[in-house]
């Protein structure tokens, strides 16, 4: 625990007297500061107000990982809240803030999966999991080699090297996920994907994936060709609930887009999936959500180039002066999310992008932003 950490607390719908007391306490103790609900580490609600249950529900749904302190004239039976009795006692408030402090993600044990840590602390099910924080936590968890492999550049005319460069997503978890996602979105059902000694569940509509597996375990599975006997099946809401119950309460919920992005990078490791011909002109229909999940090397530059004008993967690497595996990794992950446009090379060759008149200045700014964002 870091006793020096000042907790940002949002006091919502509390009476003026309590608010005044909290303001005074925050200024004098330095243990917490009052802030608005969107900046807060924790929320304090008045549990005696008629709208308090609604507020609690909304907060739980919209920000599942956020600790809630409930100030009330009676002990609360609501799940996952820290109860504070009226009139508010300073010691009780500080004890509650200490509990909150220990539970904040930045205090999770090193190497511990942030998502898992929060689950354990709050006893939340996957439906109540804060996915955004977990998504960011992935950004630094994996080395470039985990995402792009370490293969050297090849000659695009070397048939043998080209064959070694390709992989078939259908033989991996990636293929199952892509099919299950399309089906659940189209049919508005859920899906159950069988894995060796485990399973993944896609919720109704296929926007989220539920699993007990950590990111590192998923990476291990992503690399492993799956037995053809292990498939996936569509399921309805009741079957989904029953299957989720069998998995227990330590479920992680992933946005399906984030999971497919990660699995595609882990599976490909810088190889090109079947379905993208090496001589196809690849364009970007939409940029991937690059603030969430792992960011493969040079992803921003590749995205900018391909959204500007389609290139073959080899030409893109050449144009940007980067290893081919970086482009293959990015393109493969985008293909898994159906973000690409593919045309054939009998179209006109890609022209070099126009240089901005202030290229020198922009390059320096880009360099500064890159350095600073790593700190």
């Amino acid at each position, binding site marked *: 625990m870091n006793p020096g950490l000042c907790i940002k607390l949002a006091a919502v719908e509390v009476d003026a007297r309590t608010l005044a007391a909290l303001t005074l306490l925050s200024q004098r103790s330095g243990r917490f500061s009052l802030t*608005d609900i*969107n*900046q807060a580490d924790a929320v304090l609600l008045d549990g005696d107000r008629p709208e308090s249950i609604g507020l609690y529900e*909304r907060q739980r*749904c*919209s*920000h599942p990982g956020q600790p809630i302190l409930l100030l009330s004239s009676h002990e609360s039976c609501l799940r996952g809240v820290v109860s504070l009795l009226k009139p508010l006692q300073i010691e009780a408030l500080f004890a509650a803030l200490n509990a909150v402090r220990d539970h904040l993600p930045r205090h999770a044990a090193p190497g511990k999966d942030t998502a898992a840590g929060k689950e354990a602390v709050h006893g939340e099910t996957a439906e109540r999991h*804060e*996915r*955004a924080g977990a998504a*960011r936590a992935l*950004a630094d968890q994996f080395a470039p080699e985990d995402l792009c492999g370490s293969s050297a550049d090849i000659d695009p005319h070397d048939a043998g090297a080209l064959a070694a460069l390709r992989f078939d997503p259908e033989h991996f978890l990636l293929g199952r996920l892509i099919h299950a996602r399309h089906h659940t979105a189209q049919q508005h059902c859920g899906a159950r994907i069988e894995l060796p000694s485990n399973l993944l569940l896609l919720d109704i509509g296929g926007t989220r994936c539920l699993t007990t597996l950590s990111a590192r375990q998923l990476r291990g599975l992503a690399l492993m060709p799956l037995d053809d006997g292990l498939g996936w099946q569509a399921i309805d809401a009741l079957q989904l609930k029953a299957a989720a119950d069998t998995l227990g309460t330590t479920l992680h919920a992933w946005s399906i*887009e984030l999971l497919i992005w990660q699995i595609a990078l882990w599976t490909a490791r810088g190889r090109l999936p079947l379905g993208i011909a090496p001589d196809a002109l690849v364009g*970007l*229909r*939409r*940029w991937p*959500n*690059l*603030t*969430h999940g792992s*960011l493969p090397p040079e992803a*921003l*530059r590749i*995205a*900018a*180039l391909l*959204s*500007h004008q389609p290139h073959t993967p080899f030409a893109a690497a050449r*144009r*940007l*002066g980067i290893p081919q595996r970086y482009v293959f990794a990015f393109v493969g992950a985008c293909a898994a999310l159906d973000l690409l446009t593919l045309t054939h090379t009998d179209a006109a060759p890609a022209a*070099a*992008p*126009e*240089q*901005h008149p*202030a*290229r020198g*200045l*922009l*390059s*320096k*700014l*880009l*360099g*500064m*932003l*890159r350095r*600073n*964002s790593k*700190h």
Partner: protein
Amino acid sequence: MHHHKIVFTGPVGAGKTTAIRTLCGANALGTDAAASDMTRTRKETTTVALDYGTLHLNSGETIHVYGTPGQERFDFMWEILTQGGIGLVLLLDATRPAPLNDLRFFVNVFTAYVERTALAVGITRSDLAQSPLSLDDYAGALRSLDLVAPIFEVDARERRDISLLVQALLLQLDPGLAA
């Protein structure tokens, strides 16, 4: 001397002030005042003039970062702010009633600016929205305005998020840029 600037815009409460503070750190200042109108339902203070910050390059050059006040009654300032700018960062609050209308509104207001520079879109508070739109929805709305631009979900308090958004903006201007 040429004035290099990046402009942040978007509706009230989308996170412009926070994003500029996140990006510029101590070199940021704002003009917040207590909200006295409908804005008060979304936050306690609002920007009444503009947000401003600077990014200083090792070479001695300065990039000026401006944030527009979100309320439409201050829109007379928007055109002035964009003069000589490098590009536009549009922040949209996913919890507002119609984020796609916000997107269309701000893109239309800044059409001429975006056409001669570049655009990057950050979606804030998507983890707080009851039924958040997908990035495909936002991309579709942009396409209907004949635009393709990076669209990321961002947390305005996260330096990495805002930095990536600005990096994407710069690379839109010149995909051949190398740091």
